[in-house]
């Protein structure tokens, strides 16, 4: 079965970011396909490589990056939501005249059409938010 996962809340702030990760991981380990994980609203904050969580806590960003790497998972950060919140890759930094970028490995920035496509292509779409 093909799942689409939508994450609307930021890391640490809301457990939705954790539940989305655990659901995605469990689905992949059971042999399901995850068509895409789409990060929207504050969910885009899952995709910054600049976090340094306490050493006795989970590293939410790294966890996503590794899951993406391991399973060739498509981790898409919404460009419009990312611009409002300051999540940028090298292209976006150049385009918007920023002197730095902060996107984490395995994530990519793209448009909202990718969310609609996930709704169309997936057998089940799950939204994790507040």
């Amino acid at each position, binding site marked *: 079965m093909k799942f689409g996962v939508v994450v609307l809340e930021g890391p640490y702030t809301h457990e939705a970011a954790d539940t989305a990760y655990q659901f995605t991981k469990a689905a992949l380990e059971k042999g399901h396909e995850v068509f895409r994980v789409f990060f929207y609203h504050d969910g885009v904050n899952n995709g910054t490589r600049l976090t340094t969580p306490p050493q006795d806590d989970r590293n939410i960003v790294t966890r996503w990056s590794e899951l993406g790497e391991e399973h060739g998972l498509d981790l898409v950060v919404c460009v419009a939501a990312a611009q409002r919140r300051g999540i940028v890759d090298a292209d976006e930094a150049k385009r918007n005249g920023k002197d730095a970028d902060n996107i984490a490995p395995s994530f990519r920035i793209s448009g909202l*059409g990718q969310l*609609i496509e996930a709704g169309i292509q997936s057998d089940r779409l799950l939204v994790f938010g507040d």
Partner: protein
Amino acid sequence: MSEAIKKFMYVNRKAPYGTVYALESLEVVLIGAAFDQDVSMAFMDDGVFQLTKGQDTGDTGVKNFSPTYKALGDYDVNKLYVEKESLEERGLSLDDLMPLTYEDEDDDWNEKPSIKLVSRSELTDLMEEQDVLMNF
């Protein structure tokens, strides 16, 4: 895409302005209109406040996105289901909402209302019919 058309419903349960959910939800609907799907929107609970008329953000400095709802008809998004019970609990009636319309291409482009008042049980039935529920 060769897939059959899916029934998409955007479920709006949150008030505008207090949080960004309503505004960013509307952005999804506009982008989604470019895809050839069967789209509708549900406004229930505090989501009905998204449609009040006379919104004027001048003093808060936040962006007034209410005019965008008026553009939905031009994007062929013309099934806006508003739950009666939610309106009543909030002291509102249809007259308190923006008059949203679309031009019906199947009926000589006559202008028709996009907002459809439905009861809670009718809305439940409509939600059951959907293929995809986008919750905001």
